């Protein structure tokens, strides 16, 4: 017994600050957040009457919140599709050594180093449909003007100011920012495939396409899964970018749970705000927990 304490004691002492901090700042606070979400504290005045799941029922019945959830789904689908397509395409092209490969990789990846707030400044302009000119009239600007001048005028649209599809426009800068990251993931995946596997397939008479289709791509599914988890959970949390592109936090068109939580917080509706936070946590957990359990099981093997 004493020996065990002697071997584990110092180890535990080293990690205990972290364990205590995370126990408080993650798990205790999650519990407290759930408690607040079950009170009727809807104004700045303290009040802590227990109301059970009432706030949740009201939120799920609320048309605005339903719209926010639908927006979140649409955002996630477009964001995922975009980053996976571009990330995969770039990685596939750059997989074989090429002249200037490092340059292309760096350019595709650089948006990742920029904050959503900074990139939001320029995307706000790019995605603005109209701008008042000096004589007071409204003229097209941003991407719409560029599309018009290169003969792609039919692609012009009102971007995020559309209650049904506006949120998909927010996915455009998000895709711009994170495709490079997905590319890096896939590149690491491609390079992790042993050369012998390709050689063996070639000796068996596989054409280049068949080699990819039947040998290489299936090897990439774990990478693909990580990419989906990482991008998916970023999408569920996306907040900064929306705030930076759409100045008015109350804008209906682009409302998602993360922005709605902020609006409720500003309005001192702490119970609803906490409830939305909890709902976001459940959504993220649905994606992430199976993944964490899966990877930790694999590790044991």
């Amino acid at each position, binding site marked *: 017994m004493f020996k065990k304490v002697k071997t*584990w004691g110092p180890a535990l002492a080293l990690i205990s600050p972290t364990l205590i901090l995370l126990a408080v700042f*993650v798990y205790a606070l999650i519990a407290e957040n759930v408690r607040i979400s079950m009170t009727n504290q809807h104004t700045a005045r303290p009040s802590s009457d227990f109301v059970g799941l009432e706030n949740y029922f009201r939120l799920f019945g609320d048309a605005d919140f339903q719209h926010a959830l639908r927006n979140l789904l649409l955002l996630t689908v477009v964001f995922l599709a975009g980053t996976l397509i571009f990330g995969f395409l*770039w990685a596939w092209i750059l997989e*074989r*050594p090429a002249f200037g490969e490092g340059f292309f990789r760096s*350019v595709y*990846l650089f948006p990742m180093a920029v904050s959503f707030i900074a990139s939001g400044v320029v995307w706000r302009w790019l995605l603005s449909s109209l701008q008042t000119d000096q004589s007071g009239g409204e003229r097209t600007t941003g991407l719409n003007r560029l599309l018009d001048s290169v003969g792609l005028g039919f692609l012009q649209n009102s971007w995020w100011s559309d209650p049904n599809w506006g949120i998909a426009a927010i996915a455009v800068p998000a895709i711009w920012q994170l495709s490079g990251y997905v590319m890096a993931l896939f590149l690491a995946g491609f390079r992790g495939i042993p050369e012998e596997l390709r050689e063996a397939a070639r000796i068996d008479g596989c054409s280049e396409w068949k080699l990819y289709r039947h040998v290489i791509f299936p090897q990439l599914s774990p990478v693909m899964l990580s990419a989906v988890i990482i991008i998916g959970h970023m999408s569920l949390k996306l907040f900064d970018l929306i705030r930076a592109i759409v100045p008015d936090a109350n804008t209906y068109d682009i409302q998602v749970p993360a922005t709605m939580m902020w609006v409720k917080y500003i309005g001192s509706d702490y119970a609803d705000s906490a409830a939305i936070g909890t709902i*976001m946590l459940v959504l993220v957990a649905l994606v992430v927990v199976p993944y964490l359990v899966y990877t930790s099981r694999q590790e044991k093997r």
Partner: protein
Amino acid sequence: MTTATVPPPVEVAKPRPPAPRTGRQRMNRTLKYAILLLFVFVVLIPAYVLFITSFKGPSDADPSTAWLLPTTWETAGWEKAWDTLAPALGRTFAMVIPASIISAFLGSMNGFVLSRWRFPYANVVFTLILFGMFIPYQAVMIPLTQLMQGLGVPNGIPSLLVLHIVYGLPICTLIFRNYYESVPNELIEAARMDGAGLLRTYASVILPISTPGFVVVLIWQFTSAWNDYLFAAFFSSGSNGPVTIALSFLAGGQLTDYAASMAGALIASLPTLLVYIILGKYFVGGLMSGSVKG
């Protein structure tokens, strides 16, 4: 996490030697570069707009010239942006640098322990730590504001310093654990044979070989704390907040001074971009193990 999902940091695989080319492959090559260059232009569009607009004066404000180079290169936007952002830049450095160093050290100790000491439920503890980096911080935000108030931590930089240390711990632990997994067991056994305890082993064997791990973690923490807006929005204001808050005030509102706000966006991005350009290789390593933290 497994190496399959999170490749070890700083390991950049070597490209393979090129295969001999045929005629058809040469055509493929041309097509390949055409696509690659097209995407370079597309990806750089926002950078181009930021750059040219930041130098535009009122005479270039008309939408018809929006995509053209400035007729006269004005620096008024840059001056305004610098005056607005300078104090916030100083505050951000004062917060981000200590936050990165402290969480890196804690992460290194955790990573070492978790990679070597198989105490009961070590895997469960590790998974519980990891979950901390996936949570949407909105799910703790309301009680967190109350907790920080209760602890008496002032709003602004002190609060953000604490928060970036605490919520940076999971990712730092993960990166270091993966890094230390590759340290040969003999090294640690040898130290133990010499009678070194855990702490001695950590200080005299592990720390000296940890530099690459520290580079990756410091870069990662620096970038994510520098670019953070969510915590900053809840725990600071324009007068005491970091550069993301200052920038959002400069660029927000209905009537935006686009020259100033784009210059501001460039100024606010410069530190992380410099890190990316100078230490790009390590930056990618950090992303590989770490972009899970949104």
